[in-house]
């Protein structure tokens, strides 16, 4: 108590000092001692849980929580950004992988087209590819270097369905070249062969077709039974082609068409 405090002066500190006088009696401490002894013995006998050392280690490592957490967040961010950019960076690699996956399809389809002469088909397919190459190269701007044409390989954009169509077209060309040219011109096979060519610039007015052309395309579509599915399962496409486009059927479809001068006759 302060010496200068008068008898009638009472402060918060004086009131709080009253709490120091709240003390237990002696009996309380006897009871406390007994309970304490029991608990102490129990603590000695009781085995410590197996995870107690881990808690101790964790409490010692508590000071490193912030830097470790920040490092983990940075690493996660870096990995996320890196993974996000990966497809863009390896676009060429992806294309080459696509080409590698498509390559066996060519051989399979050659095997499937028993009726079509192998040498002729290869030659025609190569011609189509080389034509597409030429087309891509010719449509390149003059200022652009040839490296773009090297990076974007035309073969890589072929879908299995495109390959099947190309094989069919090759077979048709082998038998009736005129009809094949007509089909190619009318149905726009060049676009199907290379639908995603980034360097091909097409005048929008060229895409506008006359109504008669579209009607003809619809009628001719029945001859092309294999449709583009967008999938890359080559075995599935080969199976579909084997199932839906036999030699007889191809021949029957072709025989329905007749070209005379500027007319196209179709028999149903």
């Amino acid at each position: 108590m302060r010496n200068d405090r008068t008898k009638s002066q009472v402060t918060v500190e004086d009131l709080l000092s009253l709490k120091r006088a709240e003390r237990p009696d002696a009996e309380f401490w006897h009871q406390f001692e007994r309970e304490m002894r029991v608990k102490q013995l129990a603590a000695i006998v009781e085995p410590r849980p197996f995870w107690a050392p881990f808690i101790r280690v964790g409490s010692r490592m508590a000071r490193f929580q912030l830097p470790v957490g920040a490092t983990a967040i940075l690493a996660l961010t870096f990995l996320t950004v890196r993974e996000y950019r990966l497809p863009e960076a390896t676009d060429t690699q992806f294309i080459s992988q696509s080409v590698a996956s498509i390559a066996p399809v060519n051989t399979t389809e050659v095997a499937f087209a028993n009726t079509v002469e192998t040498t002729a088909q290869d030659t025609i397919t190569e011609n189509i590819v080389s034509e597409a190459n030429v087309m891509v190269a010719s449509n390149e701007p003059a200022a652009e270097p040839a490296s773009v044409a090297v990076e974007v390989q035309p073969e890589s954009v072929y879908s299995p369905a495109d390959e099947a169509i190309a094989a069919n077209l090759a077979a048709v060309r082998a038998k009736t070249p005129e009809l094949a040219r007509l089909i190619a011109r009318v149905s726009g096979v060049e676009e199907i062969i290379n639908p995603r060519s980034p360097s091909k610039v097409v005048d929008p007015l060229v895409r506008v077709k006359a109504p008669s052309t579209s009607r003809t395309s619809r009628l001719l579509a029945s001859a092309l039974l294999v449709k583009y599915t967008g999938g890359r399962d080559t075995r599935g496409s080969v199976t579909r082609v084997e199932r839906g486009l036999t030699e007889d059927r191809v021949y029957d479809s072709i025989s329905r068409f007749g070209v005379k001068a500027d007319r196209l006759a179709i028999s149903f």
Partner: protein
Amino acid sequence: MVSSPERQQEADSDWDIVQRVQAGDVAAFDELSIRYRGRVYGMIYNMTSNREDAADLTQDALIKAFQSINRFQGQSSFFTWLYRIAVNSTLTHLRKNRRRTFFSLEKVNEDDRQSAEVIEALTDNTGAERNTFVKELQEKLNEAMQKLSIRHRTVVTLFEIDGLGHQEIAEITNCSVGTVRSRLHYAKQILQAELQPYIRNEKRPH
């Protein structure tokens, strides 16, 4: 941190006993327990305002200290280390039982000169009326303490009731001295408002 020579002497004595316990003399811990159980109990009691809880928490704190005494390296005084264990146990208990507030109060020892002066300053009554007034004042004091947040209550208990210094409180509560001062100032303002009817700032006319 040891502030006064008495505390330094006490800390040296404690360190000797601790080394004996660490060497395997388990019974030596009883000396430490008897030496500090009253102060630890008082601190916990003033924070919880419940004598049963205070007794349990004091025992738990002493047993924790006993179990962990091999890890005590003497970087602080044993008293500060034991108080830190007790404060942390009490804070955990209070946070778990935030809604439960049962008062179980000790009797005010009026043999204490300081408290007798305060009571005499507040009332002229004697006998049963005086006892009733003391009881009422005690309840008001505990109610006011319970209205403080746990952190503010801890600082007020350690400074005003246990008489620890700011630096010791900062070590025990693991915060800065400035924070201790700030919490103490804020807590006193609240207590002053709560205990206004019992505060006498001027001389009473006789």
